[in-house]
Structures are given as structure tokens and as C-alpha cells.
């Protein structure tokens, strides 16, 4: 609409009259997302040291959340889980492309990845930090003619709730892994890894159950809240988590990466896990 020849009132990428340090937030988000996605990609490519049980093969052990659930297991890899833990088992499938390492993470990471990619919070984060549409409020974005928002190529964002359905399954699986981490060779105990792997599904659960789509499905879609008090109360609780969605998005992203790092370090022998099993 208005276009006046005063610097900052014209249109164009980065044009603004803001005098504060508006670049800090998108730059920090850019670095944060690059760091975590870079680490997760690196960890996925390793294909080894994602499991630790101190050499025992019975029920229990630490499994990196980036590799859970295990569909296939390549038991020739160092630090791999015992065969009983895999949904299908081993050996590693022959159809697997040879250019990719035999990493179980590649078979599952697309699901949580899709959930975060289409998440309403992360959309804000990467539209600002990566796509600069806009980089910050009242700062000119990258010109697009015509701007289509999420009606063009980005229409796939509407599938977020389908990614949610898978994410809910992952909360159950990661909770099972947390239980698993309190056992070693069938014996109950506690280790630092158990605590790390317990916090992980709590944070991922807080993030997943605070999802906007989940909030809509549990009660937000109703017009008449008083018609179903159970759903209304659930919606209120989900709304509480939803108001901290950004916080849990970052905390869970950090912790899932940290949990993998911890298991990896213990499995590779760089860190000795303090635990009650004496391993």
C-alpha cells in the first residue's frame, strides 16, 4: 500500500526503521536449529554406539532415542543392540542402498522429523530464521511475487496432525525405552543414563501433548465446551502445555540430542556410567 521515500518505509529485504537489535533472535534460532539438526544428522550417519548394556544381553539397557524404535539391527556394528530388541531383527536388509551406512536411525527419524518440520512453533522459527519471511517483525522479508504463504508449495503443512499421530506413538516407545533403561540383564537399578532417558520422554511428551493439532483434536474443535466437560478439562490442560510449546520444543530438541550423546559416549567407552549395577 503506502510507499514513501523515507529510508525504512520503503519495501525490500531487511528494510526497517527498527533501531533495536532485531537480528539477534533469528540468528540465534538459525544457529540453534543448524547445530541440533547437524548433530542429529551426524549421529544418524554413525550407525554404531547407540546402545549400552555393559555387555549383558538380557532385558534392559540404554538405547539412544535417535535410534528408537529399532526396526532392523546390524549386529556387526560396534555398540549395536541385541537382536531381541529389533522389531524385525537382523541381518541388515540386503535392499539397503550401499551409499548409506547401515544405520537404524534412517528408518525412523523421518517421523519425528516430519512432526517438528510441520510444527506450528518451528514454522515460525524457520520461516523467520531461514526463509526470512519476515526475518523479524516490521522488518522487510525476502520479496515473493506473488506471496502464497501456505497455499502453494507449503500446503503440505496441513498434514501436521498426521505427523502428530506418529509422534504420539513415539512418546509411548520412548517411555518404554525409559523403563528399559532402569533394568540391566533383567535386574532393576538406576544409572545416570536411566535418568537421562527418563527425562527424554517427559520433555518430548510435554512438547507433543502441547501440540496445536493435539489441542484442536482433544477439544479445541468443539464449539460447545460445556457439552463435554471431560474434553474441556483435557483441552485446558493441553492449552497450558501449548502456551509453553516453544519452550518444550527447544528443551526436547536439546535433550534428545544430549541423550544420544550420553549413550554414545558411554557405549564408546569415553564416559563411565554411574549406576547401581556396578558395570
Amino acid at each position, binding site marked *: 500500500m503506502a510507499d514513501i521515500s*523515507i529510508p525504512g518505509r520503503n*519495501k525490500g529485504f531487511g528494510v526497517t526503521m527498527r533501531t533495536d537489535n532485531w537480528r539477534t533472535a533469528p540468528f540465534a534460532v538459525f544457529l540453534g536449529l543448524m547445530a541440533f539438526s547437524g548433530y542429529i544428522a551426524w549421529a544418524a550417519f554413525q550407525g554404531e554406539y547407540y546402545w549400552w548394556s555393559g555387555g549383558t544381553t538380557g532385558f534392559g539397557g540404554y538405547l539412544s532415542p535417535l535410534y528408537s524404535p529399532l526396526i532392523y539391527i546390524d549386529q556387526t556394528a560396534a555398540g549395536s543392540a541385541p537382536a531381541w530388541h529389533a522389531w524385525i531383527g537382523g541381518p541388515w536388509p540386503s535392499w539397503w542402498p550401499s551409499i548409506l551406512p547401515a544405520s537404524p536411525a534412517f528408518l525412523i527419524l523421518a517421523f519425528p522429523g516430519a512432526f517438528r518440520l510441520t510444527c506450528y512453533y518451528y514454522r515460525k522459527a524457520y520461516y523467520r530464521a531461514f526463509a526470512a519471511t519476515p526475518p523479524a517483525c516490521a522488518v522487510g522479508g525476502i520479496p515473493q511475487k506473488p506471496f502464497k504463504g501456505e497455499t502453494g508449495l507449503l500446503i503440505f503443512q496441513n498434514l501436521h496432525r498426521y505427523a502428530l499421530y506418529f509422534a504420539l506413538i513415539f512418546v509411548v516407545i520412548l517411555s518404554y525405552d525409559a523403563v528399559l533403561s532402569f533394568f540391566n540383564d533383567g535386574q532393576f537399578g538406576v544409572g545416570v543414563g536411566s535418568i537421562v532417558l527418563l527425562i527424554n520422554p517427559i520433555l518430548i511428551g510435554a512438547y507433543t501433548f502441547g501440540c496445536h493439532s493435539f489441542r484442536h483434536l482433544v477439544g479445541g474443535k468443539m464449539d460447545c465446551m460445556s457439552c463435554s466437560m471431560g474434553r474441556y478439562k483435557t483441552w485446558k490442560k493441553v492449552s497450558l502445555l501449548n502456551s509453553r510449546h516453544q519452550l518444550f520444543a527447544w528443551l526436547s530438541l536439546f535433550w534428545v540430542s544430549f541423550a544420544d550423546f550420553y549413550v554414545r559416549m558411554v557405549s564408546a567407552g569415553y564416559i563411565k556410567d554411574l549406576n547401581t549395577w556396578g558395570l
Partner: protein
Amino acid sequence: MAKRNFKLYRGDNDKGELVPYQADVDEGMVVLDVIHRIQADSANDLAVRWNCKAGKCGSCSVEINGKPKLACMTRMNEYGADETITVTPLKTFPVMKDLVPDVSWNFEQNKRIKPLQLDPKDKDAKGNYKMKQEDVDRVQEYRKCIECFLCQNVCHVLRDHDRTDAFVGPRFMIRLAGLELHPLDKADRIPQIKNEYGSGYCNITRCCTDVCPEHIQITDNGIIPLKERVVDRYYDPIARLFRKKK
């Protein structure tokens, strides 16, 4: 009292400039107070729109050092003593004169929206429409809007990309949410929300929520619930199976 430096936009939609002023600032003053002092002391013909001076009428929306704000709710002590404060009219709308924008486009959008449609069968024995508190709580938030149009101004779909042809903007997404989520409302606006009001053009960057002086959660409680209802109707085959007609 301290002398402070200001730059105010003077001009109209075709021609204008930032004119420097100096003004005495007393403790506790807000930016609108200083604009009035400049108007009284050195720029009698300065145009500025204001009314309540209490953050409730939404008239004094301007951009202060590039940030969309209400001039009456922006305290002078938010800025450094040596900082020059630049006040310009809302960028998204045409300038009528100086700090006064022509926001009439917004009123045209409002007219396009189907109003609340009640069913007389929902009246109780005394002829009143009644709602329970749980139902009031959610839609109450949307009624807090003071129509300052700061959200419309900062929305990059309108501000940078000029898609006034496709998107009604956050203020009217909030109005639509207030109607569409209303338990007594019988109208179906979902097709219009998708096709005419342009819910898909919002890419959730939340600047509207950031600038709202009433702290309405425009994105989380207004736009996203509407987007999810559009998904129910158009993009989710499972939800379509279970959909009840309104």
C-alpha cells in the same frame, strides 16, 4: 525535565519527510504526551489521531523507532536519554496526513464477514440466549480487540507482500474465530475462511501476537484453531469421515 530529540513524519501518502523536533520530557510521560507537547509548542498543524489515552480506543497506533505500538502506552523511559525517537504512521496503510493513516480498508473487510447467526430455538423459557462460563471463557478473549490495527500493520502478508486481495489479516481472523467458535452461532464460514479470507496465507510468524496491546493470543487461539478447522474440512480424510454438519 529533560530535552529529548524526536523525528516525526510530516507529509501525506505521496510526499513526506522526517522532521526533527526537540521537546521537554517530564517524568512519567508517554510518547503521545510528547507528541501533544510538540503539537502545542512547535507544530500546531501536526496531525495525530488519539482519543482515550488509556490504551482502550486503539486510535493512536504509530510506529515508534520502527516498532508498531500505541503511542499512549509507550513510556518515554523505555528509551535511552540520548536516543532520538522516530515516530511514523502505520506503514501498511496509506497516509492521510502526518501520523494519521487511512485504515478504511479494514472496515471494508469487516463488512465481508457473515455476522453471528443465532437460532431462536436456543432461547430459554424467558426468551434469553444463555451460555455457560466454560463457553464464554474462550470467545471472551476475541472480544478484547480494540481495533488498533497494529496486527494488521505488522502482518507481513499485508505489509510486505501487499496481499490485501487474498488475506483479511489477523484482526479479522480473530473476529472470525470469535464467531466460528461461538457455541450459539449457526453459520458456516469455513469455506470462506479458506477461500475468501485467506487463512492459508498466514505463515504463523506471530508478529500479530507480539504487537497486540490487549495480549490476545491471536495466532495460538485465533488463527491456528481456524487453520485446524480448515484442515478438518479440506485436508484430513479421516476427520471428513466423522464430520457432523453444523
